[in-house]
């Protein structure tokens, strides 16, 4: 399937979203709640683009818009730029002290009206729901959206330490605004009001995962080897590669 994004002819398969196709062709579409490997959530709305199909023009969220043959896409028009600015202004009111949102606002030259601004607000969450999705993908489903309207937030049931949580930190890892607090200290990890014991890497001795997350990983991979952290795994792989190339010459 062929389509044009900003004048560049792109190739895509049926069922792919505009965002996926654009990413593959190296075309940047701004977004907060899109993450590779996740289906689009269409929550942050920064990925708005204009789609021209025949004589019809409309504005769509590229992270959930399935591509069509021969459409012409413009990533940024004056109208879309204005919309993005408005969205960023609202995000800035939601998380006025978040460094990432502030950086974004600076980049787009957006200032929030002062009379609506609470400078003491320490909220970082923009309720994009990526963390909820990540937790679902892990198969743990420990967190979800709670309440609604202005009281909406992401949390565990009753804000308690969830017995479903494995402390993997996937939620914090995907968070675009760094809103989820993970405290790692001397072999203990605190997240979502629960404390976990951590596992040491058998090679370098650094703590790298919680006992629960490591157990799940072992079960999924059907692996009974000694615990090895990501860094050491990379090192082993690199060493293997080096060895195999050394034998060629």
């Amino acid at each position, binding site marked *: 399937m062929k389509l044009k994004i900003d004048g560049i002819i792109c190739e895509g398969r049926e069922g792919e979203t505009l965002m996926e196709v654009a990413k593959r062709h190296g075309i940047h579409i701004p977004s907060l709640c899109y993450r590779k490997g996740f289906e689009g959530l269409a929550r942050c709305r920064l990925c708005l683009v204009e789609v021209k199909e025949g004589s019809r023009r409309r504005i769509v969220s590229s992270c959930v818009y399935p591509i069509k043959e021969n459409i012409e896409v413009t990533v940024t028009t004056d109208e879309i730029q204005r919309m993005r600015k408005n969205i960023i202004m609202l995000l800035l009111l939601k998380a006025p002290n978040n460094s990432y949102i502030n950086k974004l606002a600076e980049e787009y030259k957006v200032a929030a009206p002062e009379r609506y601004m609470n400078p003491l607000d320490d909220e970082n969450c923009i309720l994009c729901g990526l963390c909820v999705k990540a937790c679902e993908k892990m198969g743990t489903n*420990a967190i*979800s959206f*709670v*309440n*609604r309207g202005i009281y909406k937030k992401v949390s565990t*049931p*009753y804000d308690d330490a969830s017995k*479903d949580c494995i402390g993997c930190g996937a939620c914090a890892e995907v968070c675009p605004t760094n809103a989820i607090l993970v405290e790692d200290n001397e072999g203990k990890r605190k997240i979502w009001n629960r404390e976990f014991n951590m596992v040491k890497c058998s090679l370098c001795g650094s703590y790298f995962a919680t006992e629960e997350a490591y157990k799940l990983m072992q079960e999924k991979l059907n692996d009974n080897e000694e615990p090895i952290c990501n860094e050491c795994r990379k090192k082993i792989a690199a060493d293997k590669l080096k060895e195999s190339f050394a034998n060629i010459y």
Partner: protein
Amino acid sequence: MSFVYEEIIHGYPKEKRYTLAILQDIQKRNGFIPREAMEYLSQYLGLPVSNIYSIATFYKALSLKPKGKHIIKVCSGTACHIRGSGTIKEELLELLGIKPGETSEDGLFSVEVVNCLGACALAPVVVIDDKYYGNMTKDKVKSVIDQYKEERVHG
């Protein structure tokens, strides 16, 4: 008094789409949704507790805390507002010594402030359980509450 939520839950097929119906049923018969019921339901439907909690906190009709024996709804819609529902609300809350959404200490009354009850001709209107009290005044509020306190109103 023990409440058997198991019975209610088992009355429904094991399908995700019945989640809300089951929660509504529990709410109706028990006045609120106990934590254990949510955990039991999660097991029964094979649905994460977090999802059920999410639903239970989303809908205003579902409550996580025990509600009073009588639910008082005070309308604050446009018609009622104009005809002085503000003072009625204040009088009621002062009489019971609670805030909107709370339950009185004796466990008799819960007060909810709602946006319209569809009875604007009766403005200002107060609904207690399923009974409508129209053209409310400060004095009427007191006498109606007293009636309920003395349990002179049934059904």
